[in-house]
């Protein structure tokens, strides 16, 4: 058993891969066939990155796994034997963090706190925060392989949704790139690139991710909009936001926000992802220095798995009003107050 603490600042890692992909999830059947969708996307992305010689690791955060189901990791690698342990770091997060961090009992999964735990522990020069059922597009792979990424630029990609009726078990380039398989029109991002599936593709160098201290951990009343709010923070911190030049693909499934969002019209505050009308596009935040569960005791339980044990020391204050701030306006960009939708 090995105990260690996560360092407070990013330290240069000589053997770090070019890219870390940060993912989070748990074996709770989200979207119907979560494990199958996850395995397919992971194998696809791993295969394409490997084929282009792009050094990468996957950091997976299994957040508050349900006690009455097998761990996700137990089901994953049986379906993806080609992914070696050295490519994938797996963090199991004690379920008590979910309760201790909650500011809204309707949220059963604090997705962005889970992502922060992964971002904090990522080793890659660039860190991609994305979702388990997202496929990297060809243009994105070309940019990653071409070495054209710049530090202090946050890259975004539009999300192309594939119809629910498409057979998910045989997804290849022909299926993904066939416009007939798109569910609705292809999304086009507009400056300053705040909206439209932000959480599916946020790519930034590791140092800058540490500088802005990840996704908002102060406002934990909603899950929806926290991805967009990261962009407000980035712009406010002088980080450029650019479109990478091509899409990611996402296969529609039951229960997604896009599919179910309108079901909560008129009772937004009761939605399982929180009230979508909060000022995600208009306020900034300052996370504590030990963001990302930095002070959680780490216990290695196998060559693949590290357990983040519970400690109140790792839990930020329930209320930290000083952490909600007015964002800084930047020349050449719309004023932050003009990003917003009115309540």
């Amino acid at each position, binding site marked *: 058993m090995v105990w260690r603490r996560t360092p407070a600042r990013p330290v240069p890692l000589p053997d770090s891969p070019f890219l870390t992909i940060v993912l989070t999830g748990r074996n709770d059947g989200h979207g119907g066939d979560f494990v199958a969708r996850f395995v397919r996307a992971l194998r696809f992305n791993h295969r394409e990155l490997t084929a282009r010689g792009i050094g990468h690791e996957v950091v997976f955060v299994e957040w508050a796994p349900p006690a009455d189901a097998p761990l996700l990791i137990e089901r994953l690698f049986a379906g993806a034997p080609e992914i070696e342990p050295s490519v994938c770091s797996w963090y199991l997060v004690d379920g008590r963090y979910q309760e201790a961090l909650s500011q809204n009992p309707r949220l059963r999964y604090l997705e962005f706190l889970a992502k922060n735990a992964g971002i904090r522990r990522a080793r890659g020069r660039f860190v991609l925060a994305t979702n388990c059922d997202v496929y990297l597009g060809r243009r994105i792979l070309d940019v990653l392989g071409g070495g054209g990424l710049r530090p202090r630029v946050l890259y975004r990609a539009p999300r192309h949704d594939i119809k629910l009726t498409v057979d998910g078990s045989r997804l290849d380039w022909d299926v993904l790139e066939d416009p007939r398989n798109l569910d609705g029109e292809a999304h086009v991002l507009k400056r300053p690139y705040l909206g439209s599936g932000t959480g599916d593709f946020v790519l930034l160098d590791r140092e800058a991710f540490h500088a802005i201290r990840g996704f908002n951990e102060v406002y934990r009343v909603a899950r929806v909009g926290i991805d967009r709010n990261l962009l407000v923070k980035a712009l406010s911190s002088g980080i450029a936001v650019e479109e990478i030049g091509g899409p990611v693909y996402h296969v529609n499934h039951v229960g997604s926000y896009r599919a179910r969002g309108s079901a909560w019209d008129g009772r937004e505050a009761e939605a399982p992802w929180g009230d979508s009308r909060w000022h995600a596009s208009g306020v900034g935040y300052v996370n504590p220095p030990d963001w990302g569960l930095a002070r959680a005791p780490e216990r290695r339980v196998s060559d693949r798995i590290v357990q983040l044990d519970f400690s109140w020391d790792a839990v930020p204050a*329930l209320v930290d009003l000083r952490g909600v*701030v007015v964002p800084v306006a930047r020349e050449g960009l719309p004023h*932050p107050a003009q990003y*917003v939708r009115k309540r």
Partner: protein
Amino acid sequence: MKRALLALLRACGLVPARRYEALVRETKNIKRDRLEWKNKAVEASTRARSFKKQAARQAARLTEAVKAADTGSRRQELDALQARLEGAERELTTAREHLMVIESKLDILEGAANVLDARTRHGVAPDPGETGASA
């Protein structure tokens, strides 16, 4: 022994009196803070509305002035009005920004009050005495 007793009490929906009182105190504080911030939000909202009206008035005057601007003195008046309009717009933007921050803080306070209320009622939270935490 103490832990077993606490667990037994928790199973019955009970928490130690010390913990209960602390949570009640915390909840009261948060409720008080929430009221304070709510008042600030109302004030800021009123200010924002006033700035908005002011901006609309200035814009209307500006339009009228543009129509009538045919002499040098009119031109000066027009420039002054333009400057005042820009100032009012800046103030409106600032007021709106602060209002958003206040509303977000209110959301947090309301969420925290709800969470503490639930913890007080159901004794869900682990006793800090057991974990050594600075809760």
